[in-house]
């Protein structure tokens, strides 16, 4: 008698099909060996939004009664494996208001495994993943984040590569053979079976000791009880903002205290204040009002509010004034403007370094043009077989 649960933490919409494919395949494969399983998205994530962290679960049990017993809870409280399909999620996830920043390994059970698709090595990932009191394993499936939109799926085999790795880290749940049968049944191509096999062999697994990892305390909120809530669901509004950092001049809005949204970000804008022409467009066109207006008329992107959409880079008329840089290149949310004010040369050096480290020529978000994914996949096959 045994029940296994797996969660997939993913970026809403961008990886909805990917995580659905993973969990559905787990259930199909469990059927292949006479077990029973079910897959479901977390209720609170619905409706999903682009980029906002979301979860899918797959549960596998020996028989229907066992499964029913296990599912008599809102959602799994402990999982055998946490699958993270974008490594920037390792910094913690905040999926909705009052939820706080949840460590990525929060549900991983002692001795369980966090599977991450990433090009980073375990030491780099452990800088992001919060510490846990119990030991667990970190498995890395080498690869870039696979993002696509709602309609056009980027079939770069990430789904089956994760399944291959899963057969290695939780071998008793479902065997690799069953996964491969399920893969063949769904996609009818040997290529995907081979991908799962390779990933099974190559997945890099390393143990993580208790207390090892990111030691910063993730922020959390105390939710009001029903007695503290006002009648007829009255929600306190946001206070009117004022001058930049509470002083004279500029403007800084008061922001929602209970939803910061920055864990949605996979890229962040870095601003070259020296070339800024104060045209206002980044500030005006930002859907998240994340720019603070400084007294000297510059715009400081607030990194607790920015969700990394990239509109500012697109509307900025000055070449290389705003650059979107991979979120992996950063460890804090400090103000760029304050840094620049304190030491301009140091800031410019920092800026250059971050751009060199994390600017990618090709955006990974969503659809670009017909046939693009096929072109990319063909290129990837020629380039490397890792």
């Amino acid at each position, binding site marked *: 008698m045994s029940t296994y649960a797996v969660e997939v933490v993913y970026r809403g919409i961008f990886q909805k099909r990917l995580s659905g494919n993973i969990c559905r395949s787990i259930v199909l494969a469990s059927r292949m060996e006479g077990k029973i399983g079910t897959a479901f998205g977390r209720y609170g994530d619905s409706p999903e939004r682009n980029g906002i962290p979301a979860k899918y679960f797959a549960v596998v049990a020996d028989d229907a009664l066992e499964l029913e017993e296990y599912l008599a809870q809102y959602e799994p409280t402990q999982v055998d494996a946490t699958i993270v399909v974008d490594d920037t999620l390792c910094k913690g996830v905040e999926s909705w*208001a009052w939820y706080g920043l949840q460590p990525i390994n929060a549900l991983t059970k002692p001795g369980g495994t966090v599977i991450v698709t990433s090009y980073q090595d375990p030491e780099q990932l452990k800088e992001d993943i919060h510490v846990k009191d119990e030991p667990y394993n970190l498995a890395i499936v080498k690869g870039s984040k696979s993002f696509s939109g709602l309609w056009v799926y980027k079939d770069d085999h990430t789904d089956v590569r994760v399944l291959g790795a899963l057969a290695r880290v939780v071998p008793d749940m479902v065997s690799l053979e069953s996964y491969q049968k399920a893969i063949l049944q769904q996609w009818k191509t040997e290529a995907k079976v081979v991908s799962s096999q390779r990933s099974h062999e190559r997945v890099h697994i390393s143990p993580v000791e208790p207390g090892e990892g990111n030691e910063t305390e993730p922020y959390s909120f105390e939710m009001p009880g029903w007695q503290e809530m006002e009648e007829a669901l009255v929600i306190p509004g946001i206070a009117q903002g004022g001058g930049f950092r509470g002083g004279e001049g500029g403007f800084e809005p*008061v922001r929602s205290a209970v939803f910061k949204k920055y864990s949605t970000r996979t890229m962040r804008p870095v601003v070259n204040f020296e070339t800024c022409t104060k045209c206002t467009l980044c500030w005006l066109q930002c859907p998240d*009002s994340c720019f603070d207006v400084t007294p000297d008329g510059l715009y400081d992107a607030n990194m607790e509010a920015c969700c990394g959409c990239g509109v500012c880079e697109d509307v900025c008329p000055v070449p290389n004034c705003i650059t979107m840089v991979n979120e992996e290149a950063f460890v804090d949310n400090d103000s760029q403007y304050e840094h620049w004010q304190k030491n301009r040369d140091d800031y410019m050096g920092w800026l250059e370094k971050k751009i060199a480290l994390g600017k990618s020529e090709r955006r990974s978000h969503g659809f670009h043009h017909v046939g693009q994914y096929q072109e990319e996949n063909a290129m990837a096959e020629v380039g490397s077989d890792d």
Partner: protein
Amino acid sequence: MTTTQQLTPLRGVKQSPLEEFFTSGHRTCQGCESALVMKLMIKAAGPRTIVLGSTGCMYVANTTYYSTPWVVPWMHTQLGSSGSAALGTAAGLKALMRKAKMKDEPINVIAFCGDGGGVDMGLSAISAALTHNDYNLLILLYDNESYANTDIQVSGSSPWGANSTFSPPGTVHRIMNKRWKKNMAGMLAAGHPQVRYIATGCASYATDMMNKVRKALSIGGPTFIHTFDPCPKGWDYDPMYSHELGMLAVQTGIWVQYEVEDGKITLNGPSRLLARGRPRLPVEKYLERQGRFAHFTKEDTAYFQQQVDDMWERWWIPGVVPPGMAEE
């Protein structure tokens, strides 16, 4: 008619008010153009405003789980009732002021609805509200061309052929949404000739949009604005390009920017230039950027182009009034 706030037009982006009344902390998608519409709308309207929102993305994403990004008072109303909520609120304010239960001052009343709430469900209530000339209110329809909140179902505003949960292209039937987008603002302008101001806008042209909101609120009586909002989730494109897609829709002539003020129709911005003969960009430039049209063949694109060409060449007024009277 009670007086309205006299909001002066902005002359260029640099005059945009610094204050935000719709701030950070909403759970919308990355690059959500509708959230930008909310931000610009209330930036233009100012602090003495009551906002009412019917169900849709801008309700669900903005005010989930006992939290809000609104600085001004905001209230939720049902999917089809933006019109009734606006009317009721405007009438309530008027009554309270008449009875001296609150200070007599002009307060803006704005009710917004999505295309599901406005073009489909709320049309009759909007129409009703627009016949009540004694009340000052603005109904703003933010149109992302689908029921985006519930994962993209077809609405009366979805474009022909677009992929959606209700119109997935198949191998046998490729085009599943065979309906053409409703001409909402034109229909309301034709049907409510006494309404003093009806306009279309797009947040990609921010100053123009804010000025339209200001004009609608200042002119008095019931008014209506229809905004065109690229939706990275439902249209399937990189969120970075929300702004660009809005501009492309206007430059290809798919979306026409105009206002109907006291019965007089004026095309503005790029739409005005297109009407004067500036060449329209091919619709392909717009369609090829979106995953919802990824299944289009050359013939589909040509058909789409034909419809847009017809609108510009055969309509009485492009995007507003369809082909004119039968020839005698």
